[in-house]
């Protein structure tokens, strides 16, 4: 939790968070990817827990999830891989995924393992708010886990305000009502970004879903503290067998326009 708060304190805008499915492209790439992302200046990482039925994801993340499962990735194995995470990686790392694998691992055991390896927060989109408030809020918080909530263009003002008070990480602004990686970009929903921006929320916000290149990253940064990129990043790994080069090329392609504009 603290690492997330510090990240937002240290950098008021232009945060770049990357989503990558754990165990993808190869089973043991997880930590290597984290290290490379940090080395290339990425501010935060969301590690996806693979699930067989990712109902909110588009084809690219569905496929990555399937590949990771076929590679043999499990939540148990993921925590083993992350055993020495904090000796190697300093940026905040969140786990993101569907509820069922967490439920089978056991909520308490899950929180305990997260704390042990140094996970800073979780994003569990299908954990209902009522259940979180009634049953798991204290558990998550006592293990130092920030819970990040999704907000969409259809989320009501009252609900956004409630989510703002409940999160101790940030609010994840889903750019449009869609599954992940739909190709439309994010220009069509700037009114919604402005609306949320004008609410003067207490929590920082990041914009994700359909942020895919330097231009959409820049748009996201205009209306929030930064952006989350998943599908486009995973797609860039498909193209290039050398992980190190692929990550370097992708991150610099995203940051490029930002750097030019600042100059």
């Amino acid at each position: 939790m603290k690492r997330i708060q510090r990240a937002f304190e240290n950098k008021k805008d232009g945060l770049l968070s990357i989503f990558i499915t754990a165990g993808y492209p190869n089973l043991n790439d997880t930590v290597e990817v984290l290290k490379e992302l940090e080395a290339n200046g990425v501010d935060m990482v969301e590690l996806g827990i693979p699930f067989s039925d990712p109902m909110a994801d588009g084809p690219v993340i569905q496929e990555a999830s399937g590949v990771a499962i076929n590679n043999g990735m499990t939540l148990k194995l993921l925590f083993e891989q992350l055993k020495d995470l904090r000796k190697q990686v300093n940026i905040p790392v969140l786990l993101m995924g569907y509820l069922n694998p967490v439920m089978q691992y056991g909520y308490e055991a899950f929180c305990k393992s997260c704390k042990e390896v140094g996970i800073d927060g979780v994003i569990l989109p299908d954990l209902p708010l009522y259940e979180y408030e009634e049953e798991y809020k204290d558990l998550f918080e006592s293990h130092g886990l920030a819970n990040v909530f999704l907000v969409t263009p259809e989320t009501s003002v009252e609900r956004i305000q409630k989510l703002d008070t409940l999160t101790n990480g940030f609010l994840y602004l889903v750019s449009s009502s869609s599954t992940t990686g739909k190709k439309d970009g994010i220009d069509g929903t700037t009114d919604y970004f402005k609306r949320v921006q004008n609410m003067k929320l207490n929590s920082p916000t990041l914009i994700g879903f359909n942020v895919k290149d330097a231009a959409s990253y820049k748009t996201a940064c205009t209306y929030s503290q930064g952006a989350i990129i998943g599908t486009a990043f995973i797609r860039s790994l498909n193209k290039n067998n050398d992980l190190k080069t692929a990550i370097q090329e992708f991150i610099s392609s995203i940051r490029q326009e930002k750097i030019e504009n600042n100059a």
Partner: protein
Amino acid sequence: MSYNVDEKGYYGQFGGAYIPEMLYPNIEELRENYLKISQTEEFKKEFDHLLRHYVGRPTPLYLAKRLSAKYGAKIYLKREDLNHTGAHKVNNTVGQILLAQRLGKKRIIAETGAGQHGVATATVCALMGMECVVYMGAVDIERQQPNVKRMQMLGAKVVAAESGSKTLKDATNEAIRDWINNPTDTYYIIGSVVGPHPYPDMVARFQSVISEEMKWQLMEHEGRDYPDRVIACVGGGSNAAGAFYHYLDDERVELIAAEPAGLGLNSGKTAATTSKGKPGVLHAAKTLLMQTEDGQVVEPYSISAGLDYPGIGPMHAHLFDSGRGSFEYVTDDEALKACFEVSKLEGIIPALETAHAFAALNNLDLKKDEIVVINLSGRGDKDLNTLMKYV
């Protein structure tokens, strides 16, 4: 203790609405309105009118004499196979499309396994002049071609689900994804008592006409409005939910659910969720689910596409968990045998799904004057491709 849904949308520990934020407004809209709308006089009048004059209800409750003689009990068949489109599915699609209209929706989506729910949805969409998209697993499209063509004739667009096992579970994933991408103008007609609250309760209520009729029909035939046992097959469990509904809290009635054992409970090729599943979350509901230790959903198997589902409706998970329901497991072979037996004894070819309910008779210790109702959920014409090999 009540076995029906509570005010939070749970049946015991099962049910709820495990939805991502993208679906929250849709589900809230439905939760706030489904009872309000469906309990108005105007709605009930149109629903009843369509069930009577379009669907062909009430369906007969028929005393199957030769089957009764063979099994040594009084066996009645609730003839849902005689509904328009050939199965109970249409009871629910009529109800939901009337709801969709009143919510101002323009476009209908649905998932389908065997194609019965897809046909029932395409049918009511044609009736109401609404756009219809049906998601169907690519494997099911292959094995249920006649139903694919029926849907297309009725004006629906059939979209193949190419992900996962390419069956009902994956068709449901694709329908949910469509809904996430089209949240305002689209209404999702779920075909079974699965998915997030309020779907299981809503579908059960629309299907409850089955046991509502059974009550007065039994009164006419037997002078009492309840049987000793009701038997129904369960995949997701909508026909069973309808047949059990008015007897859920009437402990005089044994509620028997026949689940598909596939090639056998321990064959690794089964869809017997209550035998092989543990509590989990799939398609936005907490229920019993066939899954790995890591929480990955296990691909189900059954000869019958309509029962080929790794979960079960939360109502049935609770009936199992509480001991209120009796669960029988029927293999492919037993179902096939029952299908041929009923055809020859009663002149009725049941759907392969329904054949599982008939096969469960073999597992019961029946007494001569006992009254048993089997919910004959659908007719078997759609299964001819599979059945032809055995004739």
